[in-house]
């Protein structure tokens, strides 16, 4: 057991938890915004995957991580705009469209990857690291928490921004109304469809960014189906966080730990089959749901299209 508590194991674990948790955090925050506005965004897995692919391709072609992140966000938004068109404007079934978008994104990105990279399998160079001076040298937690790509700090900052948005601004109030009682929002003279469209597009950008981070920083390359359910975990995070962004952060880190355990254990020289470790995050989701599921809460109008005048 002592081998597990060495400094290198712990800092690998913490570093890995942050790296694996950031995509979940970004997508979870995005999903939370959608859910607040009444859209159950099952397509988020597809949005992340589109972000991964676009982020990788652009970062590779232009040799710029920043461009990659921009492209990832835009790609996520492009998929989200289809979701907004079909589910918000045309009031189609959100679940059907979500599955359709995820399947299409999986197929399309894998297909494009096959034709471009299946012979070369290029890798990106190591992503630039922004060490926070003074903090990055603290024993154990310093290297794990404060030597990351700049987008990590931005993502954590975003938690505060979203919390502020939800609690203190009209935007937050409008989102909440769009998910709880869209008719009331409509009666107050606010465009329900515009509010929901904005929410879905924001989700797309965040999910795309999360996906891009996965490919550019986490893996350094694109592999077909690489998000491997991260989008769905993000949905669970948003569901359990009950509208509170800080809880998404905590949840994302918790799942990040279970995702990074494989690497950390390998570093510590403990040999556990990868398949066993791969089960951890999903087993944890189920466990958390069984224990805390009673407390999960979703807006009443979630998943229902808003059609003016319809009862």
């Amino acid at each position, binding site marked *: 057991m002592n081998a597990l508590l060495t400094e290198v194991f712990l800092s690998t674990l913490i570093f890995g938890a942050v790296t694996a948790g950031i995509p979940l955090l970004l997508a979870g925050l995005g999903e939370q915004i959608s859910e607040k506005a009444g859209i159950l965004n099952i397509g988020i897995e597809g949005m992340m995957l589109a972000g991964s692919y676009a982020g990788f391709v652009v970062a590779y072609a232009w040799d710029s991580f920043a461009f990659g992140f921009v492209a990832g966000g835009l790609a996520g938004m492009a998929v989200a705009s289809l979701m907004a068109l079909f589910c918000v404007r045309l009031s189609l079934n959100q679940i059907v469209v979500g599955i359709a*978008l995820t399947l299409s994104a999986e197929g399309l990105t894998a297909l494009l990857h096959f034709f471009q990279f299946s012979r070369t399998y290029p890798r990106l160079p190591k992503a630039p690291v922004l060490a926070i001076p003074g903090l990055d040298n603290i024993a154990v937690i310093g290297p794990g928490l404060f030597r990351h790509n700049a987008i990590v700090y931005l993502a954590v900052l975003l938690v505060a921004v979203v919390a502020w948005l939800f609690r203190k601004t009209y935007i937050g109030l409008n989102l909440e109304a769009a998910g709880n009682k869209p008719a009331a929002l409509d009666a107050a003279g606010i465009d329900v469809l515009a509010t929901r469209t904005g929410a879905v597009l924001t989700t797309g950008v965040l999910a795309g960014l999360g996906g891009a981070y996965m490919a550019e920083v986490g893996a350094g390359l694109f592999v077909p189906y690489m998000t491997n359910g991260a989008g769905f*975990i993000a*949905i669970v995070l948003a569901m359990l966080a009950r509208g509170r962004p800080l809880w998404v952060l905590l949840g994302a880190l918790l799942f990040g730990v279970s995702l990074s355990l494989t690497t950390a254990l390998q570093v510590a020289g403990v040999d556990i089959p990868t398949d066993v470790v791969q089960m951890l995050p999903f087993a944890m989701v189920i466990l958390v749901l069984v224990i805390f599921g009673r407390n999960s809460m979703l807006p009443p109008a979630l998943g229902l299209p808003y059609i003016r005048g319809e009862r």
Partner: protein
Amino acid sequence: MRAVARVVVPILLALGVSGLVLLALGKNPLAYYSDVLSRGLLTWGGLQATITRMAPLLLIAAGLVVSFQAGIWNLGTDGQFLLAGVITAALTPVLVGIVPWSIAIILSLIVAFAVGAAWSLIPAFLKASYGINEIITSLMMSFLGTSLANVLVKISFRDPSTDVPQTQVLPVADRLPRLFGTTVHSGILIAIAAVVLVHVVMTRTAFGLKLRMVGANPRAAAHAGLNVAKLTFATFALSAGLAGLAGAVEILGVQGTVRADWNPAYGLLVVPLVFLARFHALGVIGFTVFFAVLMIGGESASRRLGVPQHFVLLLVGMLLLFLALVDYLDHRRRLMRASL
């Protein structure tokens, strides 16, 4: 006429848009589609492979018909399929040594059904007790089940006599018998029987009516005195059990063993198929032919034309999208006409 258009138009649109993607990638979509058709349907070998492939697809689809009609989104069929498959692959070779062949097969099928159903207990519980969305929970269980199946193959049920991590191979003589000298195994009969049974249960029995009531309006069903929680469990058990049966049939009929990391991932592909059939059990059969041709033909085309199987995923996603869109347009046109 309208009903036909509502099915044919989305299919044509999906084929068209996906074809444009192929064109953009420098492949000839017409060559691809005709290759899929000829290899999947018009050659004798392809036709037999297509009918063989239909067996697991039909069983999964039959399960989804039950759950979708009852308003439950069991999207975890991949995990249920795979786990039941692995358990079957481990159990049957042992069973045939102990009891007569026919009893061994029947026992294996029952166990596979039970394994699939058991894997849906947690999503059913979370849905029935806390109202937690079953899409997410069943998907999570599916990811979990896929990994667990791998663990079982590599650690618990690994055949020590081979270097490849796989379960003990069921001898060809002990597999499901083939039909009339073809390569098609009798699992297809089980599958068709299951589809017909599901159709009868859902449309002709009180139990089926109860499930459909819950699907149409769970609150009204609870008001009418139905035990919605119990029906939720029953729906999940039937739907997941049929997915488990699909896994068993695929193992007993085709594979004979489970190799590590084997996951055909039929589950999400069958969802659009059931939508195309509008949740109608018998309607599922026709669309399963279409999907099986796509898969078998696509596998051949991926070798011959260098278009990977991922393309079928794109095609199916597009199909689902256009299906929803065409339904919407049709619905709106009807509303417009009604308001005139």
